[in-house]
């Protein structure tokens, strides 16, 4: 009979070694493939060696453990290994998924090994419960990584370096022919993005276009003065600037 094989995926070498030595003591017949140092390597090694069991760290660079598990699509017995992803542990705790917490407890690993020894004898089964949990977790991790997609930093060449300007420091942005002038708390710079692009990328709750060639940070506005002919002027705090609001953008300030 072909020996049972397993793959360990973890980005921390000492922890890979430790799991190896635990498994060598608890399950000497288990054959371990080369270790994977990240999610990408885990997938490549899986395709190469087709192990029966995969030990997956959740927090890995590139693809995380949850993403790898979804890509493996139930072609191996999965065991997640995690230091403290409490939202994941919560989801795992509902059953359907085997998991270990770091530092690994030998007694707990022994239980897992026993369960794995029973399961590898059986054919792999599709599990809707497992798929559902993985989908849910993948969605949550995605959300944690990118809650919103609004522009948060503006890249601008200042002198001979590229500054990353946090958008909350930006006072206003003004079209300058093909470029856009960024005026922020500490200076001014020209960037290549157009006002139109910026208007789409900036959070509309914080930035408002007031003129064909102008976007203003609302938190910098101290006063709105109505002008003649359906226009207005914005006075900015901490400075002398007065910026125009043209007729077609005045509706943003109707309620103020």
């Amino acid at each position, binding site marked *: 009979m072909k020996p049972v094989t397993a793959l360990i995926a973890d*980005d*921390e*070498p*000492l*922890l890979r*070694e*430790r799991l190896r*030595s635990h498994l060598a003591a608890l399950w000497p017949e288990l054959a371990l493939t080369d270790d994977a*140092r*990240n999610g*990408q390597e885990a997938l490549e090694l899986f395709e190469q060696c087709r192990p029966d069991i995969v030990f997956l760290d959740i*927090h890995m*660079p*590139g693809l995380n453990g949850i993403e790898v598990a979804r890509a493996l699509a139930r072609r191996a017995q999965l065991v997640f290994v995690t*230091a*403290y*992803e*409490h939202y994941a542990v919560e989801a795992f705790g509902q059953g359907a998924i085997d998991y270990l*917490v*770091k*530092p*690994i407890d030998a007694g707990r690993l022994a239980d897992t090994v026993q369960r794995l020894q029973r399961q590898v004898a059986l054919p792999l089964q599709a599990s809707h419960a497992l798929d559902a949990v993985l989908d849910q977790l993948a969605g949550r991790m995605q959300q944690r990584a*990118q*809650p*919103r*997609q*609004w*522009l*948060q*930093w*503006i*890249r601008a060449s200042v002198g001979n*370096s*590229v*500054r*990353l*300007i*946090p958008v*909350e420091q930006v006072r206003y942005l*003004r079209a300058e022919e093909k470029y856009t002038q960024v005026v922020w708390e*500490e200076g001014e710079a020209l960037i290549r993005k157009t006002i139109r692009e910026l208007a789409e*990328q900036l959070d509309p709750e914080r930035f408002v276009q007031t*003129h064909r*060639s*102008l976007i203003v940070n609302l938190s910098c506005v101290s006063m709105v003065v109505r002008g003649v002919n359906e226009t207005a002027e914005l*006075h900015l705090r901490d400075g*002398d*600037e*007065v*910026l*125009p609001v043209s007729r077609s953008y005045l509706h943003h300030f109707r309620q103020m």
Partner: protein
Amino acid sequence: MPPTTSRPRTADTAWPTRQQALKVAVFTLLLSWPLHRLSGTPYHAVFGRIGFIGMALLLAYAAAGRFKPHWLGIAAARLMAVVLTAPIAALATVLATQGANFITYLGERQALLGQVMMVFLSIFFGVLFALAAMRKERKQRERADRLQTQLEKDALERELLDARLRLLQKQIEPHFLFNTLANVEALVASGSDNAGPVLRHLIAYLRAAMPRLGDADATLATELQLVRTYLQLMHLRMPDRMQFSVSDVAAAETLRFPAMALLTLVENAVRHGIDPSMDGGSIEVGGRRDPVSGRITLWVSDTGVGMSETAQPGTGLANLRTRLQGCYGAGTRLDLHEATPRGVRVELHFDPGVKP
């Protein structure tokens, strides 16, 4: 059209205040009495002229503040308006009382003298009142400015307090703690000589990172030591993916430095730069003191994945900026630069002499 114009410095209204009108009315009523006695003209006739001139000067004073030409200062415009209005208003009173006879009237020596005196008095009292009014306005403005400054100062202090509170609430990240402990456990299990030193690093880090109220004893030297300890622990966990160097800064032992300020930047570099990168990278921490100005520049530079334009800045950086400005004054800067070929370089510029 140029979207920016500088704010014109003019008065908000073209009309005098009710208080100013009342003052002028009372004064002209009083002034009319000695003039009535001196000239023998009936009181109501004297007051009619004096009162009219007084109100005309007041209106000119107020309007000049609002509609002044841009090349003239507000004080000069108001004084000029008063001086120019006085003879015109005086002449107008003559026109009103004498009608077409005014030329014959002014031909009389006595009447002309009275007229000249009237103009002189108008200018004298007009300028006097204008100066007093402007002095009062300046005082009011200064008071408003003081109030504004006080408000801003209060706001800054509140922000600083907030920043301190948030620092207190900052906890050791459980993910970091358990992962590091798992590494220590692995070292102990394998009988590695490294186990002891690593455990000591972890203890030093935990002690420094424990929440505490005052950071009065924290210096740049202790901060650099904390950063080294943290980076050593991370290097242990990712020896193949993370290299680092921390250089000494001259006179760091005597420089007060807000605890965990540099550590926050280094943690960010690991978390957002190195950790998400499959190939990893290196982190360099350093500093220099400008020999002329005494200003200090500290930097944390990494060769990690760099920052996406939509990466959440979190509260950490804004919080840190507030704390540093609270410690070293408003001239303190915290800049982020894109490193070449990749990664992020964060620079901290401050003058340690502001509040030693």
